[in-house]
């Protein structure tokens, strides 16, 4: 299966859903012109990142007119979109929707909500509790939002669940500017993407936003890494951009022959050991 995937490295306006909605629609039109089959947007692309008390005001229900509009668009192009999701019982999640053929195929609710240093997500959002791969027109995918990727168990679960591509929408803030070195945070992300792609033998599609919010910059640099650990496309740092790559899912097969990690992975042992550790920790007395 060969398909064209677009990455919209956008600059969302903080807490202005209307403006972002219009901008995202423009991006979708442009991606269609460029014959993309699938278009991925960053984390919270419809709302911006440091929302604080704006979370409830920027939230959307699955049956909202905006989502309906995107579902209509998904008849022509599959979409991955980051937004604040509000459930029927008014719980708010930092979510990403996969929409295709007029349907929401999958919702990933961010599991690991950074709440330290400059981050404050758990104050405003509830935690997702599932990591699942899901079937799409183009193969089996999983979504992990930004911080989810910093927990190696998350991409591991996704890969074990059969994901051929992990999509990671992100809002990664710029920091670390040592002399003669690349931006520190981009270095870490790029090493992570390469390592996961190679170790798990699947594609990693990292989609980071750009722009500023109250002096905090987001560095962009979106990329897709193939199962051999090679970058097949790289977005600019700091600039808005739309990039499009052709993906050949068969690369996974080629990477797995000769079989390396996949064939020998001892899932039973992994679960057994994790259970043992869980039991041991439960017994700890303080």
């Amino acid at each position, binding site marked *: 299966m060969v398909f064209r995937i677009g990455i919209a490295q956008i600059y969302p306006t*903080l807490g202005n859903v209307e403006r972002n909605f219009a901008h995202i629609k423009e991006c979708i039109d442009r991606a269609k012109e460029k014959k993309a089959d699938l278009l991925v947007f960053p984390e919270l692309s419809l709302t911006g990142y440091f929302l604080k*008390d*704006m979370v409830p005001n920027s939230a959307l229900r699955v049956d909202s007119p905006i989502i309906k509009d995107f579902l209509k668009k998904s008849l022509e192009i599959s979409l991955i979109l980051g937004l604040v999701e509000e459930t029927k019982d008014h719980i708010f999640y930092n979510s990403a929707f996969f929409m295709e053929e007029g349907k929401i195929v999958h919702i990933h609710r961010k599991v690991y909500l950074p709440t330290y240093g400059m981050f404050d997500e758990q104050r405003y959002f509830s935690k997702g509790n599932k990591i699942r791969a899901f079937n799409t027109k183009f193969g089996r995918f999983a979504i992990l939002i930004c911080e989810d990727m910093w927990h190696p168990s998350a991409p591991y679960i996704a890969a074990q669940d059969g994901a051929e591509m992990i999509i990671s929408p992100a809002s990664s803030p*710029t920091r670390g*500017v040592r*002399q003669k070195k*690349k931006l520190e945070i981009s270095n870490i992300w790029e090493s992570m993407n390469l390592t996961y792609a190679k170790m798990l033998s699947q594609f990693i599609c990292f989609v980071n936003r750009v722009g500023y919010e109250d002096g905090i*910059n987001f560095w962009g640099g979106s990329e897709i890494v193939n199962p051999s650990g090679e970058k097949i496309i790289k977005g600019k740092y*700091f600039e808005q951009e739309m990039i499009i790559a052709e993906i050949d899912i068969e690369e996974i097969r080629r990477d797995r022959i000769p079989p390396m990690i996949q064939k020998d992975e001892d899932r039973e042992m992994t679960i057994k050991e994790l259970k043992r550790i869980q039991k041991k920790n439960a017994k700890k007395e303080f």
Partner: protein
Amino acid sequence: MQKKNFKELKINSLLVKKILKGFIKNETRKVGFKKVVVGLSGGVDSSVSTYLAAMAMGKENVTGIIMPYKTSSRESLEDAKKIVKKLGIRSLKIDITPMIDAYFSAFPEADNLRRGNKMARERMTILYDHSAKENALVLGTSNKTELLLGYGTLYGDMASAINPIGDLYKTQVRQLAKDLGVPKEIVEKKPSADLWLGQSDEEELGFSYEDVDRLLYYLVDKRYSDKELIKLGFDKDFIKKVIKKIQDSQFKRKLPIIAKISERTIDRDFRYARDWGR
């Protein structure tokens, strides 16, 4: 004292320049402004802020205001003019002597601290007046070292709308200045608030910027404990003195505290980014 170069404080100037230019451009645009106004002292901090602004906004959108008092050094004035000329920005000179002297004629006993604070605040009111006059944002010029040590006047030189250099230590500002092409004599001259004749930052503070920046880096950025800092070779009293300065000046880095009465109090449970909707 010999200048030491600490590699932990060295920055990637190209990258920093890119981030800060974007910062000035974007944060100005978001509030619907196209111009900035900056107080030019002739020192390295205001020079760097002005260089970045000129690169970000275009020289025609930057106004540098030089605001000497009668005791201000000639050298400061000349250096400020050099920046204006080099960048080709618009500038004006406003002598604050009449305003300051008129006020202190009623308080002739006022000490240097009161006079210095008053001058800093006089300059602030001029900058904000020109902000309104020209639809220009006031650009900050306080570096991370002085912000952490509280070595600045609250609502005076610490006041601004956006501050591009507030997360760079003094020695990092110097490195950036050099890499941006700020004249050498400005980068290398003895830092001074120039509030009275012969004033020197480092004499007043009692330590050099090189030493305190390295300490602040480990203390603040790297969260080292006292024990670990001593192990790195920092003097116990020096550590204590610096921590006290940071703690004592915390109020300068915060908005005034508000007595809580209602269910939703500004900045407690009413939390929004300044870029709200922008």
